[in-house]
């Protein structure tokens, strides 16, 4: 997995609440059997018209936001389905960090599996960051220090220690868990006695 340490760049403002995963990546793009190549379809219905032409005034279609690595979005970002195609398409477009007042749980988890940092900010901070993003102010995200800087604004943010470690080192969850194989086997042995109907295969 890609490591995340610090990130500098302008941020695209998307002041819409409840941006769901169908908006981030519509269903017709879920037919792929790959994780890559979804960036061109990110926010498809907001980004392209019925003839497949770019909608000029959509923020990610305008310069310099078409190069954004950061997204500032309204509350409850990523609600809806569990599709990991949502963070895959963000990542493929180049977005590595999303700022919002809240995220849907599954989307939030999925981001960390793909080296994307979702940051929860307060409503007041979001207002200021949205304005800064609209003014094309350069953002500076520092994961080790847990800070967001944008122009005159500077905020700290919270992140769980385990998630932070994994992002900083780009660690693969499965590799870590496989280190606990013995514990998993012990658990199975113990439960097989207590709940034998769950272990017909053993």
């Amino acid at each position, binding site marked *: 997995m890609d490591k995340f340490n610090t990130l500098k760049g302008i941020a695209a403002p998307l002041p819409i609440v409840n941006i769901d995963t169908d908006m981030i990546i519509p269903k017709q793009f879920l037919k792929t059997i*790959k*994780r890559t190549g979804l960036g061109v379809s990110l926010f498809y219905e907001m980004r392209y018209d019925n003839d497949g032409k770019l909608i000029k005034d959509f923020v990610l279609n305008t310069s310099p936001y078409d190069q954004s690595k950061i997204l500032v979005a309204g509350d409850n970002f990523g609600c*809806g389905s569990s599709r990991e195609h949502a963070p895959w398409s963000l990542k493929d477009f180049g977005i590595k960090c999303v700022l919002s007042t809240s995220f849907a749980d599954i989307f939030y988890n999925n981001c960390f599996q793909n080296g994307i940092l979702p940051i929860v900010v307060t409503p007041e901070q979001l207002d200021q960051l949205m304005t800064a993003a609209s003014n094309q102010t350069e953002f500076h995200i520092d994961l080790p220090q847990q800070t967001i800087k944008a122009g005159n604004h500077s905020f700290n943010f919270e992140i769980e220690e*385990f998630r932070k470690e994994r992002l900083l080192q780009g660690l693969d969850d499965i590799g870590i868990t496989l280190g606990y194989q013995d514990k*998993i086997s012990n658990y199975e042995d113990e439960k097989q006695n207590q*709940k034998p109907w769950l272990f017909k295969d053993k």
Partner: protein
Amino acid sequence: MSNNGPKTLFDKIWSDHLVGQRDDGTSLLYIDRHLVHEVTSPQAFEGLKLSNRKVRRPEATFATADHNVPTINRENISDEQSRIQVETLAKNTKEHNIEYFELSDRRQGIVHIIGPEQGITQPGMTMVCGDSHTSTHGAFGALAFGIGTSEVEHVLATQTIVQKPAKNMRIAVNGKLPFGVTSKDLILYIIGQIGTAGGNGHVIEYAGTSLKPLSMESRMTICNMSIEAGARAGLIAPDQITFDYIKGRPYAPSKDHWEKAIEYWSSLPSDQDAFYDNELIINSDEIDPMVTWGTSPEDVVAVSGFVPDPSSGKTENKQKSIQRSLDYMGLKSGTKITDIKLDKIFIGSCTNGRIEDLRNVASVVKDKKISSHISGMIVPGSGLVKKQAEEEGLSKIFIDAGFEWRDAGCSMCLGMNPDQLKPGERCASTSNRNFEGRQGRGGRTHLMSPELAAASAIKGNISDIRDFI
């Protein structure tokens, strides 16, 4: 969560599945059953292959194709990408010895319909699937939640998942459900009350006297839409109705283990005085038959009500959001809900594609015809639901009324297959999401119960079932 004090249903299942826990609360949770479908699994199997890893417990893993499959003429899937996804699932499950309910198998269907139908879903289990509506299985008192594809790979390889414990929320609904009010209305009402982010970080336990007499089918409809309230999972305590439903199903505990299983399941309901981070109490007489008017499942209104005005939003953002929804839906504030004219009716999905739903629809449309401008489609949740509906004569009632009677799958709930709305078409749908473009680009979705959708099909407008019977 304390170790010795009174525990909730969630606390009990959680602590019984802990393999390990870090100081910051991050936990390694054992997963009893894993359901797999064609859309969110190919990259997970590819990941296993690239790392030379095996599936830890193939026998605890079950697969079917549902999201992408046609519901008509399905011998040959004409869409190449869809066909490749289905073929890839067949190949992957064969390679890893995973039970696969393929298209030609009667048992094929929507993953959340067939888990319970086969007796795979049982109280006290942890269950996951690469699909957010995995919350459905919570109706059995199983801790069941949706996961992303990377986590699917993690569960395949390790039979565990890395999670932080959720907070406990209890929603009690008390009193007999009023005439015309179903479990779909109940969950739509709840989502309207707490909002689509209201359950974020929580597992919602539904309780109260309204739920006690409900069938497993109705309970599943409630838990199914927990995710629409942002919750990680929904839960209902198992009881005799639960045990009776499971008994004798193919993957239910065998006779040798049945008594022991019942004993364990009976220990699961929340202890008295267990702690909940949040509680909400609802009187059933507050609830009317509900319909969504907008593009979020929280945009609900009683069917006897009116399309809202943007100024009713409490914040500026909410006002903008209402206006955006009204524009997308092509609706004017103040319009009577029952004056909204429809083009299509979709009855099916993991929310309302079970036999009870079809029986309820049949009782409304029997000996009637759907309105001449309406095109209606009924999609059973599984091949076995289809078979049963045909044996009970329901399919004949549907066809005589003018509905199309299809094969099992997710169909127009998400429109990955050819069952889609055209731009501007307005649909009464028994599914779970009314997001922009969900059922087809520019399509307009009104979520409601099967009874309301059936009545609306006959009238041609959104209709109140209470005026109908």
